[in-house]
């Protein structure tokens, strides 16, 4: 029996699996490359003006993505505004306050929220949230705060506010579970030291929160990344009007929504190319957000693992 120091089968197996692993890595670049190629027509035709013009006219073949960029940003920031305080509250509860027997089921319920498909959120949005906004919330907002530019308009129900609320519900599980993990990663010695100096529970929590600042920022960026890319729920409640307006009551249009609504029926190559360019913008934005966020979260959990 010959003695092999390295079996040939091992080499083959290792190379094969490495090939598949590298394929996953290459997939991201393949996607970017294909989208750049697909949007070449639009890039050549409009250049940087694409990002700053507001006209979206398929008939005259004039395409400007500003309303969609604005819509995506506005709805996502609104969602973060609503979801962030709630998520931090949930994260504090799960990592600092809750006893073990309560923390796990509650964590699980929050994660179930993340598992609900976007389309079901959209369905619920159309038939439950929007009518409620139209009949109760928005008239109230107009009456009480209608002097602010954010609450001027007609109570359609559909619009930025509905999109912001639904996105907030969808983004909350991500931000709270990552925040909870970040807070848990902070060593107990910090809390014990604070207690030893006579701090109350709230003061200790404030210290823990400030220790985990960058991790919480990472969690927020990941949530923002999800909000920016969310399609179906937003498409069904945002109203689909490609105009820029600062009022929460007005309909808007997001980048993902315009792709979802118009891609299958885009008649000309320039039209398709413009939509692919919007997808490319989305791709780049979410990748940047994800890379920054994960770098932050990785470094924060590593930092505390070594302490």
């Amino acid at each position, binding site marked *: 029996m010959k003695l092999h120091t390295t*079996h040939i089968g*091992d080499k*083959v*197996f*290792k190379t094969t*699996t*490495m090939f*598949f*692993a590298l394929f*996953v*890595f290459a*997939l991201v670049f*393949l*996607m970017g490359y*294909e*989208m750049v190629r*697909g949007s070449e027509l639009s890039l050549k035709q409009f250049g940087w003006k694409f990002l700053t013009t507001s006209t979206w006219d398929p008939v005259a073949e004039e395409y400007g993505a500003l309303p969609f960029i604005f819509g995506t940003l506005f709805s996502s920031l609104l969602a973060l505004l609503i979801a962030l305080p*709630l*998520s931090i*509250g*949930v994260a*504090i*509860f799960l990592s600092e*306050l809750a006893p073990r027997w309560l923390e796990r089921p*509650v964590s699980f*319920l929050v*994660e*179930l*929220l993340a598992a*609900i*498909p*976007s*389309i*079901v959120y959209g*369905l*619920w949005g*159309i*038939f439950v949230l929007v009518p409620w906004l139209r009949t109760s919330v928005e008239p109230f907002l107009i009456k009480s705060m209608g002097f602010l530019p954010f609450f001027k308009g007609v109570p359609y129900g559909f619009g930025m506010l509905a999109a912001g609320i639904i996105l907030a*519900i969808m983004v909350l599980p991500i931000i709270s579970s990552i925040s909870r993990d970040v807070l848990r990663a902070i060593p107990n010695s910090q809390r014990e030291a604070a207690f030893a100096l006579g701090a109350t*529970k*709230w003061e200790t929590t404030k210290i823990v929160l400030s220790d985990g600042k960058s991790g919480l920022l990472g969690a927020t960026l*990941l949530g923002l*990344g*999800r909000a920016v*890319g969310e*399609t*179906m729920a937003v498409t*069904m409640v945002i109203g689909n009007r490609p105009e820029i307006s600062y009022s929460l009551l007005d309909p808007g249009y997001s980048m*993902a929504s315009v*792709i*979802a609504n118009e*891609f*299958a029926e885009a008649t000309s190559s320039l039209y398709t190319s413009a939509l692919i360019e919007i*997808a490319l913008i*989305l*791709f780049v934005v979410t*990748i940047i*957000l994800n*890379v920054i966020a*994960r770098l932050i979260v990785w470094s924060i959990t590593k930092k505390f693992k070594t302490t």
Partner: protein
Amino acid sequence: MTTLSMASVAIAIIPLFLIFFYTLAQGISALNVDFFIHMPKPVGELGGGMANALVGTTILIGLGCLFGLPISIFAGIYLAEYGNNAIGQTVRFFTDVLSGVPSIVVGVVAYILVVIPMKQFSALAGGVALAILMIPTATRTTEEMIRLVPQSYREAALAIGIPQWKATLKIILPTAMKGITTGVLLAIARAAGETAPLLFTALGNRFWSTDIGHPIASLTVFIYDYAKAPFDDWNRQAWGAAFVLIVLIFIVNITFRFVTRGRYKEQQN
């Protein structure tokens, strides 16, 4: 502070129950045997079902698994067994990045890669899109499940002279298989709930079709079309389909949690 914190938890969890029970209440009236085995009726007629959508989603998921699972499982094996190096870290990082790419963007890529060369919408394109969506989840869970297999198994196999590749394929992988299957189910649940990428890859089909080279119906696009419709009956059917969808997804999630609860306990403490 405690009250504020508990209040946020309450506010956070309320939508979960609201959505689930509202879907249940609205959808249950649409559920009957006909709903599952009949085809959609023409516009304006009452009744009909979503049989083509159920079959369509099954075919799409099957294609997604066919394209995505081999890649994921082998990549996961590499990451678990040989991945403690720079290549492994990079691959892991980009897998996470890939999981953050919006599903609509994945749909556009599938359109460019499959629909344009084929010059038509097809279930194949939808399957490719779903495969790309499944790969990050399936790779990560495969890696984690294989890592959970005790090192002593590998050492014992090597000690009796089994080559490493055989040990991985025939001993480690079967041991981890239960966890990997549940992880794959999780990825399938995610893919089953996707609508956006299917809107312009598999497109949708009002008729019975099992042809993968042509447009095909799916559960999620069914919900989308019927939700937008001005007919109350169709809206009810959308709720019914949505209820079926979230029940399936919840079952998968609960199973995954159940199967992995013991294993993760050591990692958490």
